């Protein structure tokens, strides 16, 4: 199982699911109406490291984070 967590303004509890790559996560989340809009604006981290490849492999215990548009300062 991997955990998906939603950071900042995304008002959504974390999710656990079976996934062997980020692509599986993308397919799963795209069915979620609540996340419409967020998927195209969010960056992604796996275990707190930013990733940019949808083929990134996942193993049990991995943590995937969605980071919406930022504005510090």
């Amino acid at each position, binding site marked *: 199982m991997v955990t998906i967590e939603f950071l900042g303004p995304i008002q959504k509890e974390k999710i656990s699911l079976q996934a062997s790559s980020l692509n599986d996560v993308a397919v799963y989340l795209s069915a979620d109406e609540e996340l419409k809009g967020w*998927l195209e604006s969010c960056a992604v981290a796996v275990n707190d490291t930013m990733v940019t490849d949808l083929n990134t492999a996942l193993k049990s215990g991995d943590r995937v984070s969605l980071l919406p548009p930022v504005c510090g300062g």
Partner: protein
Amino acid sequence: MLELFDGPVPVEETLARWYKEEATSNYGAFIPFVGTIRDEDGISGLSFDIYTPILNSWFEAWQSKAKESGAVLKMAHSRGDVPLHTSSYIAAVFSPKRRVALEMIEEFVEDFKASAPIWKYDLKDGKRIYAAERSTKIKGSGLLKVKK
């Protein structure tokens, strides 16, 4: 050094402390950037969420980059609510020479705005409203959007 404060950053005290910390490190230039909450659009303040693990690694990467130029960076940021006319942010560079410091403070502050995992909210009419229009997508955003 990255410092987080619940509420406003104590600017005078933080600048004084940083200046003292590096007083004998032989840096010729010290440039802090202080960000203060402006009274605009009827807000009573701003509020911030921070995701610390990624903020720390973002900052450490910058600190390594600074070190290659013989410089050092410091940063302080607020968490939670920050009222009008108080400050939410200080970024600072110390370096031996002024050119490195002038260039680095600009790059550091701009990359901070584009990449640091911090989310801003307007405090308005008792509500906390995500500042979507002023926010910037982190590089690589949209990865999980399934192409139709």
